[in-house]
């Protein structure tokens, strides 16, 4: 995934899109006050400088799907691991809730179900049947909308054609009004993401930790 910070406006549409797609539990004000709002993608906002010469930095942060994911080796039950496509996946059924992965994620993108999530009737009608509902006690995080990837792959398979570049759109990417996020196959040198990842503005978040993140940020042009 490539995120162009020169386009991103910090509008948070992606945050809501992710909730809408992934059946993420809702917080309450009381729980929010305890630091328990679950967002799989968040917009970090930082202020630099002082009025009137102040700059605002918005940076969408989601699971970076690190190739060398620090969250993976520490999980005692293999609930989080690398799938053959290179995604960092989370197997909810196996997770016993040790929190170790979350502590070891330098990006702090993992969220925990502190309680069984609740949706007052009839809010459950909105639930995406392609995404499981996670019970309390289980860790979760951005999946790169794996259900969308699978759907597109299945459609392509059925039609006997390869998946086209840009055909898979995770919910956040799909929603982003500024089109700041682009999803594609970094292994394919001709894909749009590969092309953009070679841009002079491309950086990765905390690359120095050796996590080999798969999210590429295009820094704001100045």
């Amino acid at each position, binding site marked *: 995934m490539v995120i*162009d910070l*020169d*386009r*991103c*406006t*910090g*509008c*948070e*549409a992606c*945050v*809501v*899109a992710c*909730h*809408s*797609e992934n059946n993420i539990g*809702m*917080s309450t*004000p009381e729980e*929010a*006050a305890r630091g328990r*709002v679950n*967002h799989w993608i*968040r*917009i*970090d*906002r*930082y*202020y*630099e400088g*002082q*009025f*009137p010469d*102040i700059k*605002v*930095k*918005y940076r969408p942060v989601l699971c970076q799907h690190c190739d060398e994911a620090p969250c993976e080796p520490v999980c005692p039950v293999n609930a989080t691991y690398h799938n053959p496509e290179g995604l960092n996946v989370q197997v909810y059924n196996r997770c016993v809730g040790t929190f170790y992965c979350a502590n070891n994620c330098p990006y702090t993108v993992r969220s925990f179900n502190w309680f069984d999530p609740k949706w*007052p*009737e*009839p*809010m*459950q*009608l*909105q*639930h*995406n*049947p392609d995404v499981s509902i996670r019970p309390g006690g289980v860790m979760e995080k951005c999946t790169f909308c794996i259900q969308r990837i699978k759907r597109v792959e299945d459609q392509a398979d059925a039609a006997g054609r390869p998946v*086209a570049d*840009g*055909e898979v759109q995770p*919910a956040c990417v*799909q*929603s*982003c*009004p*500024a*089109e*700041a996020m682009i999803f594609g196959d970094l292994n394919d040198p001709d894909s749009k993401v590969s092309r953009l990842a070679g841009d002079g503005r491309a950086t990765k978040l905390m690359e120095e930790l050796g996590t080999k993140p798969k999210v590429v940020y*295009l820094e704001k*042009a*100045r």
Partner: protein
Amino acid sequence: MSMERRNFFKILSTASAGVVATGCGTDSDKLIPLLVPEQDLIPGVEYWHPSVCTSCPSGCGVVARVMDGERIIERTTAGKTEKLRQRLAAIKKLEGNPLDHVSGGRLCARGQAGVQSLYNPDRIRGPLKRSGVRGEATFQPISWKDAISEASDQLLKVKNEAADRIAIVTGPVASSRSNALRGFAKAIGAPEPLVCSVASHAAERKAAEIALNWQGIPFYDIANARHILSVGADFLGGWVSPVNYARQFGAFRQARMEVRGYLAHAESRLSITASAADQWLPLKPGSEAQFLGAVGRILLDLNLAPKAASLPPNVLAAFKALDLAAFIAATGIEERKLRLAVEQLGKSEGPLVLAGASTVHTNSVDAIVASHYVNMMLGNVGNPGGIQAPAKSPIEPLTNTKFAAALSQARAIVLDEANPLYTAPKAAHVREALTKAGFVLSFATTLDDSAAWADIILPAHHALEGEIAVAPAAAARVSLAIGGTFVQPLYETQPISNTLAELAGGMNVTFQPATVKEIAEPLLPKDLTWETVVREGGFHTDATPAAAPLTKSKPAPKAAAPTNAFALNAAKFEGDGPFLLQPYLSPQLHEGASSNLPWLQECPDPASSAVWSLPVEIDPVTAQKLGIATGDNVKLESASGSITAPAYIHPGAVPGVLSMAIGGGHTHFGRFASGRGANPLEILALATEPATGDLATGATRVRLTRVGPGKDLIQYSSEDKEERPHAHR
């Protein structure tokens, strides 16, 4: 884009075009058959149906992902209540309609959350009749038949006595619904429905009419501009068409080879537009007119106004005569900076000035008019990368915003998609009007602040449950986004058109609102069939439609200019506090009609990162002087009252200006919004923009005092500096 288009057609072609819903009678037993699978609904198969977002006037076309779902309903038969599982078509997700020119397949946070208002647990489940004292919000269920007959009797009584005393109040969205209301008003002899909203964009409309003789809100071709100076319009946040402008902004920045658009933004708040800008010019509130006057003048002085000759002579003279030093001083911007910004604009190959009134001041129309003249002198009116004429709207928008006067006279008040008790200040005396009126009728889907005062509530279908057409607020092409019926209504609600027709019938008036098809058909371009329009969710025609010429080509009558004299008045402020209160439309809660959606409540505020609460933004210097820390409760006091809210010390707040997002402080709005936070609109003075009569939201002076430590500010991220200080000692 091409990919999305292909996908979209494929999806639609697998979907059944037919309507899944079986409709809804007044008898609960006739609800959808229980546990009998709908023939058209295969479990696990998704269907995409087009519709339209009505959460703000921009009218984004959406597509809804529909699959089977299950809910628990209670049914009482022979005195025994049993719980039953009901299978029905459910909307799983809303996405932008890729064929729609406004949304282009994207949606803002509110648009995404629309489905949560459909499935909100606090929706009104059937007609209600007040059972206690008005305003106490105690209701009892009543049958549709009785409700309609009672409501029409009441309306008929007022109509017979004084039909002009029926006030129909609605919101700013130009839709088949507002159209129906207008028709209803006309049919029963009531005055045209009033718009009560802080997002009516009346100043933008008026200014376009004055300067360019355009009807509607101009459209800015941001994507093709190279250098934008935007003034007073948070066009990426809560302004006219955030999704469209954000899309264009992305392209403006990074879609062109070798060209990266440069944005300078002048506003009295560090909005998300100001944050995204390359340069922010923090204006003194209300000085937009002076700023734009100075811009025009400097351009002229620097000979950077190639089309200065096209300006009306009085305007040119006014620019040349203005006291530049005083104007610059009024803006609060350093002269060197301002001049540099203007020079950069003038020297650009594709300059564009975009002005609006995210915060309305008493001179907002002056400011926007000035911006049009600056664009005129830059030569970009009607050109690519410039300001473009609004397309003729297929639905005439309602524009009368003088609701306060009408309400105070009203004997009967009809509320639809408007919440005047919330969006109007206390000083507008809406509460008194609602108390005094002989009859209050509401079509609310959820019990909000104003619906709580109704005598009868005739709940309408949710916008996603019925047929709807919306004309976008800003579009350069004739467009209409439409939605059909594709999910069963959840409750005993009715399409508003049925309700209005039945009410009219009860008043012995024959009235049948125009259907979506009837509205759209006259405007259909020749090559477009109705079936295509239904399947694609509307039309956004590139070609000039057969029946609807763009108004742009109509030149302003030369004589009109002098009568609409060009003035750059100073903004007026009411009250005597040392601070200016600046309520604003945030990207997540806008004017508060989305506050009952948990997704938006827990969506961090882009400025303060607040969730489930909205703070007052205070600049660090003021905060220090008054001993206020982030999270403290503070009291804002104006001549018409006070509110208490948590403080957020905003490093980018303009000193002396207290900004606060609208959205909190609902007295009634379901479990997720009732009693949460404070409403900054409440304490506004009743100042108006003289040219429009619209409420000037930024014209109130307030006092600020610290109340004490509080617990109301909940921040998702309290840290707002990227690097923690780590002195090496």
